[in-house]
């Protein structure tokens, strides 16, 4: 996955993501594609969650999955999550859960609860930073004011090295793939470098939904695992998603 939040010269925040999933879960030699990834694509839906006949939040989901991976609370905040790998992983959380130690929260139920109940960027950020999880994760959160965006790197119990937008010092976007931002990504899977190269080439003056979509369409940020691309603008309360494909030659991940 690749998630990013960028601030345009007017202080508007653009949140976008590629959802990549299905690694090592069956390769279709004939079609040069991942089996699970291709089966996930027809399940992608945009959902408008309403209460008392008005929108509470909107998301891009896989039908049948009640948790949230990508969502906007219109005019308040935007949220995406990327997978984080750690030896202290989800299987330990599940083991604890089965043994009756249930003080942790399932990742996608936390993101769903945040989108459904939090009413500000600050509240969402606190919940995502402090709630004990069953599995590690990256939460990429955008607010509705200039400067409000961060990458929350979570272990099961801690929030590690939060990274904030810092436009005054030249950090006009934050970008997360699937590696801790203070470490180099695995050289075999470096989607961060090409994505940052293209964002820097775009420059803040030209950043928009269109140019962010261009970045997420550039290989290997776009790869054989990419199921969908979502673009969100909190100030317009807008979410749009597109099913993706990666024509050969294309990285398998």
């Amino acid at each position: 996955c690749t998630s990013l939040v960028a601030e345009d010269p007017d202080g508007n925040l653009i949140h976008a993501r590629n959802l990549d999933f299905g690694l090592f879960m069956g390769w279709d030699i004939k079609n040069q594609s991942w089996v699970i990834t291709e089966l996930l694509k027809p399940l992608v839906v945009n959902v408008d969650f309403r209460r008392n006949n008005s929108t509470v939040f909107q998301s891009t989901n896989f039908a049948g999955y009640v948790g949230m991976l990508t969502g906007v609370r219109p005019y308040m905040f935007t949220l995406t999550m990327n997978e984080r790998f750690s030896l202290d992983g989800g299987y330990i959380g599940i083991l604890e859960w089965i043994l009756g130690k249930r003080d942790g929260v399932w990742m996608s139920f936390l993101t769903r609860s945040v989108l459904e109940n939090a009413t500000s960027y600050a509240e969402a950020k606190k919940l995502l930073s402090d709630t004990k999880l069953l599995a590690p994760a990256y939460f990429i959160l955008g607010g509705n004011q200039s400067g409000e965006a961060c990458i929350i790197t979570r272990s099961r119990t801690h929030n590690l090295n939060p990274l904030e937008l810092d436009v005054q010092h030249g950090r006009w976007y934050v970008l997360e793939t699937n590696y801790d931002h203070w470490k180099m990504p695995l050289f075999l899977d470096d989607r961060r470098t090409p994505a940052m190269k293209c964002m820097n080439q775009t420059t803040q003056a030209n950043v928009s939904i269109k140019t962010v979509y261009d970045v997420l369409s550039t290989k290997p940020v776009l790869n054989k695992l990419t199921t969908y691309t979502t673009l969100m603008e909190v100030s317009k309360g807008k979410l749009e998603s597109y099913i993706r494909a990666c024509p050969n030659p294309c990285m398998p991940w």
Partner: protein
Amino acid sequence: SMQYVPPFTEDCRTGMYPPNGPTFKGAVTWYTVDLDLLPSKRWTEIITDKKNELINMVQAIKDLADEFVPSGRLEELIDKALPLMVDTLPYPFNEEIKGIAAASGVPLGEVVLFNIFYEIFTV
């Protein structure tokens, strides 16, 4: 030339929006979930539309499980143990998951597996 050797890094793309061409496989359909409904009824419209696709997806995960454990024990575990887990999941998600199983006809354990896949996949 870079794009013909791994990692097939392209020059930064431009003019890709509005989405079109070989990297665009279609727009995404919008649905409404009414949070005023009973949790078990919220996803019925979506699942009615996407029932076959969900069945195909779950079948592929079962095939994968059978490849790992040809005896079928893993699949049996999913269908026997995971339903016992659903009521340990927080409300309303447990009820929504039951509603999805009822609306799709997919066994409850397999819908639970689909919904906790993130934690399981870290294995």
